[in-house]
């Protein structure tokens, strides 16, 4: 991809995160995630893209083991660095979270605790996983705040979240996520709530951090513009399924699933969508999936829908590393 802030591939082969056939059911009546599989490799940004309600955030929370009560998770494999996480107790999961696996969220305004200073919130995660005194933790926090581009880090440590802007708070969240040198960063729509200029800064920061620290990033977004700028690999989600997965370059060059193509037609991605083409839209919304559903979930909104779409959908290969779920052969 020709993009100013993209970097050359420094992707390590063994996956940091392996997800196979992840399923999440809410209250026994809604299938939010229906057999998602994906890998995130070291130094790689894997973008999980889809409309609101397609199950991408739930997937992220499930990987972290942060689903609420009423959600039932099952998976054929859910492994971090080769270690299966599905059988871990809450206590063992808590040891991984914040240490090896960190997460940042969409809502920087509310994701920090209003009652505690930035310094105290950053230090506690280090103290929890690494021990050491508060002094050491605060020094590290100040260093990381500087690293993520927060001015006057020493001053910020004593401030409360309400004294910072949204962009600064998201930087604090990122710095806090880095306190224990995680190997995997899960970022759930980290730029959605921010101003456009701040969005670009935060994205650039994530790219830099990845390059310098070799982070594996699972980036959840609905914004194909974001995908085009940072992704190595893309998984497109629809109604709880990954309908297409490919290296970012392949996906933008040859989108194969009708949903991916429709999605791409809706957004002006620089270098992909031409000026003379009108922007598209996909009528309707993501359906709520109930247990027992068969066939392609997109068929109600798909312009190519056929009778055969009500049957089980085959997984097709479009290249060595490019898969999609559809009856159509491209």
């Amino acid at each position, binding site marked *: 991809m020709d993009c100013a802030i993209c970097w050359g591939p420094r992707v390590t082969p063994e996956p940091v995160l392996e997800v196979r056939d992840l399923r999440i059911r809410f209250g026994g009546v809604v299938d939010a995630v229906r057999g998602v599989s994906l890998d995130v490799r070291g130094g790689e940004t894997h973008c999980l893209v889809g409309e609101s309600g397609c199950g991408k955030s739930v997937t992220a929370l499930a990987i*972290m083991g942060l689903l609420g009560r009423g959600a039932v998770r099952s998976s054929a494999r859910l492994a971090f660095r080769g270690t299966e996480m599905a059988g871990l107790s809450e206590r063992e999961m808590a040891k991984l979270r*914040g240490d090896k696996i960190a997460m940042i969220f969409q809502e920087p305004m509310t*994701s920090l605790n209003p009652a505690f200073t930035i310094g105290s919130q950053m230090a506690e995660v280090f103290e929890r996983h690494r021990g050491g005194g508060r002094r050491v933790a605060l020094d590290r926090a100040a260093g990381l705040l500087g690293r993520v581009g927060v001015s006057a880090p020493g001053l910020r440590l004593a401030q409360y979240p*309400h004294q910072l802007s949204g962009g600064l708070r998201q930087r604090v969240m990122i710095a806090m996520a880095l306190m224990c040198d995680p190997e995997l960063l899960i970022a759930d729509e980290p730029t959605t709530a921010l101003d456009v200029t701040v969005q670009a800064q935060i994205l650039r920061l994530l790219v830099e951090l990845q390059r310098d620290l070799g982070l594996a990033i699972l980036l959840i977004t609905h914004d194909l513009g974001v995908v085009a700028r940072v992704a190595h690999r893309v998984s497109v989600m629809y109604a709880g399924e990954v309908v297409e997965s490919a290296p970012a370059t392949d996906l933008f060059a040859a989108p194969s699933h009708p949903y991916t193509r429709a999605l791409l037609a809706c957004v002006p991605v620089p270098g992909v969508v031409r000026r003379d083409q009108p922007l598209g839209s996909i009528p309707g919304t993501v359906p709520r999936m109930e247990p027992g559903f068969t066939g392609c979930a997109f068929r109600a909104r798909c312009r190519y829908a056929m009778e055969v779409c009500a049957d089980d959908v085959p997984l097709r290969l479009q290249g060595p590393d490019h898969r999609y779920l559809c009856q159509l052969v491209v």
Partner: protein
Amino acid sequence: MLTYLLRRFVLALLVIFTVLTISFALTRLSGDIAVAIAGPAASAEDVAVIRKTYGFDRPLPVQFVEWVRSAASGDLGRSYLYREPVSELIRDRLPVTLKLGFAALMVALLVAIPLGIVAAMREGSLVDRGVMLVALVGQAMPGFWLALLLIIQFGLRLQWLPIAGAEDWTGFVLPAIVLAFSAIPALMRLTRSGMIDALSSDYVRTARAKGLSRASIVMKHALRNAAMPVVAVSAVQLGALLGGSVVIEAVFALHGVGFLAWESISKNDFPVVQAVVLFLAVIYIALTLIADLFNAVLDPRLRAA
């Protein structure tokens, strides 16, 4: 924040003035005081003398201004019954009422906060419903009735605790529990709803994503935010407990301010009634002000404003 506090202070002064007016009006509305003081056997001349001595023959506005002026300078009048300044009567009886009020508040907090937390952590469970039922019963049950039940069980049957008077701390146990019961439901509901909000908040999700221990998530991150309104309301509740001790002090024969009020009401000792009402109202208002201050200290967002 200074303007905020100043505004609260001016408001408090206005409320105190209103209380002065109402307590004055109520005692004057309850019939001819001179007749009440003189008693049924007194002659018309006696009543006239009493009326002149106490200044009841002057116009009401004059009496009111006189009452406000002396109250402002700390002179709350003299008791007809004890022939002593009311302020001294209150001062002598205040320690008992304060002990009872604080003990009741402690009991209420020690019961309400843990129960509220447990209920919130298991929202919708049997535990939660049980706790809410206790709150409902507590709210519905009159204090004097609970007092009688406890007196029968612990005072008369088991003979564990004294049923009247306050020779030592044991005399405070039953009245404090009874009084606490009136404050528990509100404090518990507040803790529960605050904790439910906090536990489902984004910052608690962040705390979980940081891998913090359950204890730290619940007792530090969630409780600190849920506690703000609880602290504020407990200051107000203390005011209500001090005021509400009238009935309980009468039932348990604790000679506090509440007992004094009960006694003076039944004996038409109206300067005392008037003064006790004013005194309890001022305490209540002061505690509300303190609650606002507490809130400002606890919530960094208010501190800056």
